């Protein structure tokens, strides 16, 4: 059959070819621009492990995820997890929290709250599954606590791979170790890590000293605080720095360690100015599961 130049097939084919040629030309011409911008935008969007997500979500939602509704889907899943959390439904809460962080690992909020729920709330639910909270043997409780804390640490390890420079994650780890299982070894390790990072809260250093003290390494804690003190800004400027509290603690250590006067930390100007210091708040060592538990 000779090619009929007026046929629908010919005209459509020609139009398609022309359109494709123009679009590809533009695509090529815009490639440098696209590389530049997409390179930047993409760096904010960590890859998703689609295979895991597909089982949990189905293909329709996957398209939505890939098509720009990632944050929204993650929010929905998180709200769903919150719903199960209110019902103390352990399997669903834990599964959906894991799913939330897989969908969108960017918000720190998801990681931190998931870790808190896994380490603080779920152990309580699990103990209650065994019977009245008071009647359950302590050994069992400890076992459950440790198990849940390990799970939370696994989660926070993954969080750290997405947010390596964020001090909130080691801070959360330290807090959980300290409060939930009294694992001062690990708590000290992570609090120390936090103190080395920019934007570390002042209280991290103080609790680090406490953790060392609890480990029986009072001397080490004392040395740390002595070095810390001169770096702190005056309280009038930054009340959170709690300079007085640190000094008070230093004096406590000196007394506890029975240090000779000559080795002690020289008297500071605030001590001289206020010979009778008010009774300052003691160290807060609680972590109540919110990021704002200190100060």
């Amino acid at each position, binding site marked *: 059959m000779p090619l*009929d130049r*007026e*046929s*629908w*097939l*010919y*005209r459509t084919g020609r139009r398609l070819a022309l359109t494709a040629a123009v679009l590809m030309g533009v695509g090529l011409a815009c490639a440098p621009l696209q590389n530049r911008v997409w390179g930047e935008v993409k760096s904010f969007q960590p890859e998703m492990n689609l295979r895991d997500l597909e089982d949990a979500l189905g293909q329709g939602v996957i398209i939505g995820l890939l098509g720009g509704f990632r944050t929204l889907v993650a929010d929905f899943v998180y709200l769903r997890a919150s719903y199960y959390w209110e019902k103390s439904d352990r399997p669903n809460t834990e599964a959906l929290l894991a799913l939330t962080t897989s969908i969108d690992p960017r918000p720190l909020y998801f990681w931190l709250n998931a870790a808190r729920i896994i380490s603080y709330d779920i152990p309580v639910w699990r103990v209650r599954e065994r019977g009245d909270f008071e009647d359950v043997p302590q050994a069992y409780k400890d076992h459950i606590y440790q198990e849940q804390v390990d799970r939370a640490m696994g989660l926070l390890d993954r969080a750290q791979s997405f947010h390596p420079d964020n001090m909130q994650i080691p801070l959360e780890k330290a807090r959980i170790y300290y409060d939930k299982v009294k694992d001062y070894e690990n708590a000290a390790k992570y609090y120390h890590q936090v103190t080395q990072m920019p934007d570390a809260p002042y209280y991290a250093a103080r609790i680090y000293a406490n953790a060392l003290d609890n480990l029986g390494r009072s001397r080490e804690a004392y040395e740390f605080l002595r070095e810390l003190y001169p770096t702190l800004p005056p309280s009038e400027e930054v009340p959170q720095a709690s300079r007085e509290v640190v000094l008070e603690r230093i004096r406590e250590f000196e007394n506890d360690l029975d240090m000779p006067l000559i080795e002690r930390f020289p008297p500071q100007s605030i001590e001289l100015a206020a010979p009778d210091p008010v009774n300052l708040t003691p160290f807060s060592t609680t972590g109540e599961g919110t990021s704002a538990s200190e100060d």
Partner: protein
Amino acid sequence: MSEPAIRIKNLTKDFRIGVRGVKLRAVDNVSLEIGDNQIFGLLGPNGCGKSTTMKILLGLLEPTKGECSIYGINSHSVKSRLNVGFLPEAPYFYKFLSGRELVRFYARVCGVPKSEISDRTEDVLTLVSMQNAAHRRVGTYSKGMLQRIGIAQAVVHDPKLIVLDEPTAGVDPIGSHAIAELIIALKERGKTVMLCSHLLAQVEGLCDRVAIMSRGKLVLEGGVDELLEKEDQRSLIIRDFNPQAQAEIEAVLAKYGSKLDKVEAPRISLDRLFLENTDGAAIGSGQDVNDKEDA
């Protein structure tokens, strides 16, 4: 002006149907010239190719062969439409505009200078007797009003040629009559009017010249009078008719070699009857219609 208002030369238009592009010839080698300041009727049944011819003339369709021009400018060119006003068949205008807004809008599209827009708009609204309904949304108009506002938008930029596609289709006799009067008024203003219609009777008394199309071909073209008159026949209309006188008249006619074919009572058209009984004042010169041939 030396150029005719419209020149159509060997115009052919094929439509392609289906995937393989089977040809359907809608207009077949039509040639036509329409002089200045005429009312020209392009007549024929539905699907005879008159609307296609009109669309090609207005640049809405591309001809397969041949060409059209308006006042010497090829229809390909957008400039050819500067001097044309067009009323499409069964026009639907922007329903969300009022009549006045619609006319103003088209005036601006056609480049009427800003200072003249208001005057021109009111002028054509008066011409089509739509001043009182001009504030209403076009969506609320009756068919006859739509045609009239359609004519208003077609003439608002004072074009030399006005093309009307089925201006009276679906309009009641009063409306048709008003439109016919309008067309005559336009001619009196020196315009050329080309109208397409399948309602042959309605345009008969209106057109100076007509062309009749059938199956895409032009079958007849000429002045209305010359086409319609039976050259060798005349009708006499007699008041106070007396049957005895008829015998004497026949005798006289026989003496000159003529013959009385038929005697019948002249009838007025239903249209006219309708007009006389509804709105007598509206009867004018233009619509004295189709009893001519049979009387």
